[in-house]
């Protein structure tokens, strides 16, 4: 009734920033030459960070586009990883168990997210409650992974073989470099597909969910269905990333689903930029790389610095580094008609 609430929600940001294409190609070029320039260790470790990046992307499409925050992405990642581990443990599937692992990882993540999402969104559960429930989902997954040790190896975790990259039995594509480019390819393709999807009508409706749910309902959209679909897709991407991670890192443990790792994903995305798929991807890779080095040199303070950085980003830089670069770019470029 009151006219006082006509204050505009200050969120004039689209789902993408100008210049993201150029930045994405630059990153791709960098990643293509990196293993040849930077050496074996990079070729070994970088794929894991790229998959963290893919995990972050799965959150960006929720948080940045739809406006839903999930603290449960790690659960889908872990479930995908265990799915890969279980598939690789079967010696005679009759076809390439690595690809079966990737498919079942994505399927498991997507299914769990879809069922959870449908269950909650159809009841119109509040955004804050959604965070709490997805957090609980991570904790449950971790506990199940610990307690079902005959399947998962419990606390000790589970060793996973490297997958055979050739789709047919007895292929000869192998080694760190091959796996590196396989991971890079998967991440790049998923990223590109997601960019395309978010620019499509479907993505536009998702952005509408973020901006104004009431208006969208009044236009005749079933927003619970859109949210469920988005969450299922996000879970599938996280599951795929987890499955590929398992075979890349050769090891899965319950902590992949834990509270700490769940939080990490949110922190990467907040710092990298929640409104940009590329921002999340780069944020995850940079922060994870920095974590790796700094937790070795200053283990005590690194997590603290990350916590403080997270808080500062939430207070001062809603769009993280991607937002800062985008604003910088706009200032340098001659103003377009806007």
């Amino acid at each position, binding site marked *: 009734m009151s006219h006082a609430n006509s204050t505009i929600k200050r969120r004039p940001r689209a789902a993408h920033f100008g210049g993201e294409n150029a930045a994405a190609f630059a990153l791709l070029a960098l990643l293509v030459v990196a293993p040849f320039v930077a050496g074996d260790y990079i070729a070994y470790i970088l794929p894991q960070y790229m998959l963290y990046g893919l995990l972050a992307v799965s959150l960006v499409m929720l948080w940045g586009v739809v406006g839903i925050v999930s603290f449960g992405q790690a659960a889908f990642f872990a479930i995908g990883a265990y799915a890969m581990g279980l598939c690789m443990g079967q010696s005679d599937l009759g076809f390439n168990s690595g690809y079966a692992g990737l498919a079942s990882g994505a399927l498991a993540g997507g299914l769990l997210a879809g069922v959870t999402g449908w269950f909650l969104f159809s009841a119109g559960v509040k955004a804050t409650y959604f965070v709490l429930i997805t957090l609980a989902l991570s904790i449950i997954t971790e506990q199940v992974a610990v307690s079902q040790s005959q399947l998962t190896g419990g606390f000790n975790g589970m060793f996973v073989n490297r997958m055979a990259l050739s789709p047919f039995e007895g292929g000869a594509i192998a080694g760190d470099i091959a796996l590196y480019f396989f991971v890079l390819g998967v991440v790049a393709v998923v990223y590109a597909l997601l960019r395309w999807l978010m620019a499509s009508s479907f993505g536009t409706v998702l952005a509408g969910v*973020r901006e104004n749910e009431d208006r969208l309902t009044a236009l005749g959209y079933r927003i619970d269905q859109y949210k469920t679909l988005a969450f299922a897709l996000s879970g599938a991407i996280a599951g795929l990333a987890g499955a590929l991670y398992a075979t890349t890192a050769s090891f899965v443990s319950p902590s992949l689903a834990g509270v700490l790792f769940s939080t990490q994903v949110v922190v990467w995305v907040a710092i990298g930029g929640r409104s940009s798929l590329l921002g999340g991807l780069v944020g995850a890779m940079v922060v994870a790389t920095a974590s790796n080095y700094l937790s070795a040199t200053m283990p005590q303070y690194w997590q603290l610095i990350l916590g403080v950085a997270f808080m500062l980003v939430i207070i001062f830089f809603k769009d993280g580094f991607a937002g800062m670069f985008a604003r910088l770019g706009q200032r340098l470029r001659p103003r377009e008609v806007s």
Partner: protein
Amino acid sequence: MSALLQTQGLGKTFRGLAANADIDFAIEPRSIHCVIGPNGAGKTTFLSMISGHLAPSSGRIFYNNADITRLATVARARSGIARKFQTPSVFHGLTTRTNIELAALRGSGSRGERRARIDEVLETIGLSAQAQRLAAHLSHGQRQWLEIGMLLAMQAKVLLLDEPAAGMTAGETAATGALLQKLVAERGLAIIVIEHNMDFIRDLDAEITVLHLGRVIANGRFDEIAADPRVADVYLGQQA
């Protein structure tokens, strides 16, 4: 001939208080029908029951001769009943064109037809030049038009407009009135308008229903209503 949209004995009680009681109302295609009344008369409650945002306590609603009393908001929107809210409800973070596009996706037709419809709607509501601006950067009046444009783009048959001229300059108000008349004449829409602005109502030259304390106290054209002593009482009583 039967009305496009009709209510019979429609009522709504909040905790024992009747916000709407026994409202019989009907609107034909190709017409405007204004609902006026002092603050608290139950105008928005009435509109909310038609749009499905509130469930009636009594009475029935018919649309195209079908009973839609229990139909969900989404289903009503899909069948062509579209609502503009009291405070403009648009997608602030998206461009004007994308706002219209989201509505156009609900309508029928191929991709090309949709694009043509978006352009045509932008033209109709006078926001073609603003197509690439964020809705957050539009003026209040422009946002009102944008919301009406969305209802057009989704190819609604009945528009429910809650204070479409609120916060507009005199010029914008007149333009809005002309726009509504044009929509009725050219597209055959049925438009229900809630308004406080009496100049706007007079210029619309339409059928008027006056609500007071949730009940219909008068029906008629502007001059009849203006001459009705009960209506004068209600409005004067408010001012005293």
